[in-house]
């Protein structure tokens, strides 16, 4: 199943400048793996050494932060949109 992934400006240079990718997978973890397989330069940007999400990366499925769903095991379905955003200051 192919999921549409939105990339933030800061990550686009690692994906040949693409703003959107279509990646196959059934969970967030599989999608992230798929991105890294296609663009190895993404790995250190997306993942920590232990394979968990980089501290300054937030991943959302249909705008819900996956850290508060099932993290990497969060299921994705046809038509879902995955967004990757850098953690920035608010307030």
């Amino acid at each position, binding site marked *: 199943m192919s999921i549409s992934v939105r990339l*933030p400006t*800061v990550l686009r240079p690692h994906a040949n400048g693409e703003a959107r990718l279509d990646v196959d997978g059934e969970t967030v973890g599989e999608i992230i793996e798929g991105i890294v397989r296609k663009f190895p330069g993404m790995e250190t940007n997306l993942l920590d050494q232990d394979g968990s999400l980089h501290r*300054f990366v*937030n991943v959302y499925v249909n705008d819900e932060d996956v850290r508060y769903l099932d993290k990497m095991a969060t299921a994705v379905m046809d038509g879902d949109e995955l*967004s990757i955003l*850098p953690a*920035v*200051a*608010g*307030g």
Partner: protein
Amino acid sequence: MTVYRGIDELIGETPILDVSQLSPNSNVQILAKLEGSNPAGSVKDRIAKAMINDAEMKGLLTPGQTIIEPSSGNTGIAMAMIASQRGYPIVVVVPESISVERRQLLEIFGAEIIFTPGEQGSNGSVRVARQMAAEHPEWAFLYQYGNDSNPRAHYETTGPEILRDVPDISHFVAGLGTSGTLMGVGSYLKEMKKSVQVWAVEPPAGENVEGLRSLDDGFVPPVFERWGGQDLLDRKMIVRPKESIECARLLVKEAGLFAGISSGAALAGCRKAAAQIESGVIVFVVCDYGWKYLSTGAWTSDLDSATASAEKIIYF
């Protein structure tokens, strides 16, 4: 009625308005905590007062000393209001992408404003304020993102007010900026009533921060980490500018409530929560009113051009 002796005595004890007519589920009440009713116009009045009082008490802020603070606006405005009454000069570092009204309010309360590039978002302001504070050790740097008085103000005032006024609360929804409101109110509510769910709403801020060189320039507020934010929050979701404006308009139309754009985002979060639960009582924070966002046309332009203007400014 009491006669108040100083403007900062008017901070807190804000009213709660039932806006359940906006709930998509008739078994779920939605209640708005009106923080726009604070004297400088936002929820940030509480933390500004708490941080300044705490620094004075600890001797970190002495008469006549200059204060420096990074802010996307509301904290700076609140601190400038209090500083003006207590005789502290204040320097506020803000992204140039704040609304013109936020800028004017900082000027009105006598702050010296330092602008940082809009494409760096609030991260740029944090960086510059830290640099300036290091170059001026004689200044007081209270630093809302890392100051425990920020969440503590909410733990000690906002949280208890909410539970006192709405003892049957089931969900608390608020915008995520420094995380102070969510950490303080969330911790208090969960300590007192374990079943309460805490939901965070945020704008797609990182999307517009074009000036980020790498993800290592990312930022998670120290307050969020120290107060165990990841365990405390039950859900966290993005609400985009268009939906935020639509909900801000609904608040005006259905409840006569002229709330800021981020409060529209919080209402959108409440409506999502209400649709997913069987029954409950949701309290959300109206962190400010709409006055500071009139220039975006959020209520007066057509939806698409209002959305385009809101995307260019920081409204959280």
